[in-house]
């Protein structure tokens, strides 16, 4: 059985609600958080796929990626940003992100990436 549990971290409420709904109707069980701190507090041993916005209040998506990589968690991390550039993309890839997506993300592209992650996790 493929683990279809996803974590979504986005501070923008409308984006968070919309993304959650998209993943939901595609058969994923999504737990959404508005900040990286809330995610770290509530999820002790994260596993599966984490979709995080880069520009988060407090701990940023990139910092979360580094923290999780340092803790050697078994997670695939997909980053999204509304202000992405080549430097940020390179940084994200070097830090171990699966992908850095520039908002607005095409829903098909997002699902494709998530399918890949879930398949890899399985």
């Amino acid at each position, binding site marked *: 059985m493929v683990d279809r549990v996803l974590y979504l971290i986005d*501070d*923008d409420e*409308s*984006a968070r*609600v*919309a*993304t959650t*709904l*998209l993943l939901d*109707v*595609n058969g994923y069980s999504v737990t959404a958080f508005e900040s990286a701190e809330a995610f770290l507090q509530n999820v002790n041993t994260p596993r599966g796929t984490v979709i995080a916005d880069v*520009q988060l*209040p*407090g701990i940023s998506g990139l910092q979360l990626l580094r923290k999780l990589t340092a803790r050697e968690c078994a997670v695939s991390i997909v980053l*999204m940003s*509304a*202000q992405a550039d080549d430097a940020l993309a390179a940084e994200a890839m070097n830090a171990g992100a699966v992908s850095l997506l*520039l*908002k*607005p*993300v*095409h*829903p*098909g592209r*997002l*699902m494709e990436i998530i399918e890949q992650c879930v398949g890899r996790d399985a």
Partner: protein
Amino acid sequence: MGRLRRLFSLQRFIERPHFVPGDTCESFLARIRIRKLLQYSRLAAVILMFAGPVAILFYEQPGGTWLGLTLLACGVVALLLIPLVARWSLLQQRSEWVSLLMTLYFLGPCAAPVLCGPIQDQGRTFVILGLAVSTYCLSRQSFLVNYACVAAAWIATWILNGVPFGTDDILYFFLAVPVVGYLICSLQTDALVSLFDLHRLALDQQQTLERTLEQLTLEIDRRQDEERLRAESHEQLQEQQQKLLHVSRLSALGEMTAGVAHEIRQPLHALSMYAGVLSTLAGEPQPDLAKLRSVSEKVGEIVQHTGELLRSLQSFASRGSQQMSPVSIEEVIRDAVLLTEPEWRRQRVQIRIDQEEPVAFVRGDDVQLQQVLVNLLRNSCEAMGTSPVDDRQIHVQLRVQNGHVEIHVADTGCGFAAEEKAHLFETFFTTKEDGLGMGLSISRRIVEEHCGTLELVTGDQTGATFLIRLPVLEPGRPDTIHGGSSSLSD
């Protein structure tokens, strides 16, 4: 011919009884004295030419013939010589010649009886004394004293000589007449001189007044010119200031662009997600209609919100000139909060807006007032960069008090040092590394142009509170402005 005309105009000048404009005290006195001399000399000439033959015919004392001839000669001199010398002295502007002539003329007939013998030894002393005093007094121009002295000398001579009434008395009478005439003329002269002084004083005052009036007229002209220039430069300044306001707004907008792009990408992202949802739902054999409706409502909300943001941005950037109209302060605050949303969200700042009912309206330019609020909110966000994350708050309070709308903008930022407070509203004063120092000075000017005030209420380390006060237009929404600021929602 020229000399004749000159003499003729001189005659007219002399005959003027009062001062003429341009008279100096000296010229007036000389004219009066000459006129008096001429009148007197005419009178004296008639009397002396009559007294001379009388003395020759009826005075039987030794020297009587000589006395008569002397008097006759004096009469001729009075008739011919005196007017000529008087006019000549006036032409030469030598008034002392007139004095000298008067003295000599007076000495002649007075000294004749003494020199020719009719007056006895005892009397001579007094006569000569009187003449000496009167001559002295003439030179000092005090005619009254002069004639008093002469009269006293004659009376003393009469008493001492014990002259009986007879031909001598008639002679003395003839001699006394010009003296009395002279005395009367002198009194008139004194009165005229006093009058002249008064007139001259009045003339001086009039001239002073005229000068003052002239200066005032010049001053008024100058001020009017200045006023006109000032109005022109004020107009130019106003134009420049409007341009500056616009530029400063565009500059703020430029700084906010990155945030704005982020702010538009977020709703676009949400819309993209919803598009995916709709696509997925549409692929299901039994689409969940309730879910579809919910999604479409959310899409509508997002589109509405983004449209509002774009509208605020557009109006914030486009307006170049001031447009005064009734403005809802509530809308101004709402738009300013919307415009600065990327910044306060990035800084994790909580914004709280408290307002009293009813909604307050002011007369003003909505975009310019927004600019003030945007400046204050952005400053507050920047001031809270170093504050603890859970203590980054902006409190906007709106209330109506004493006919004024009061907007308090309070933050929990780093506040201002005492030195900074003193220069806060000065142009080019800034506490930011990359600041221009225009924001607060422009904001204060905008508020003052709206007949309001902008001040720092508190600014210590616990945060800063700015207060904007604007004259309230009318509590509640007046019917007359439905077509104004609400046109967008219509």
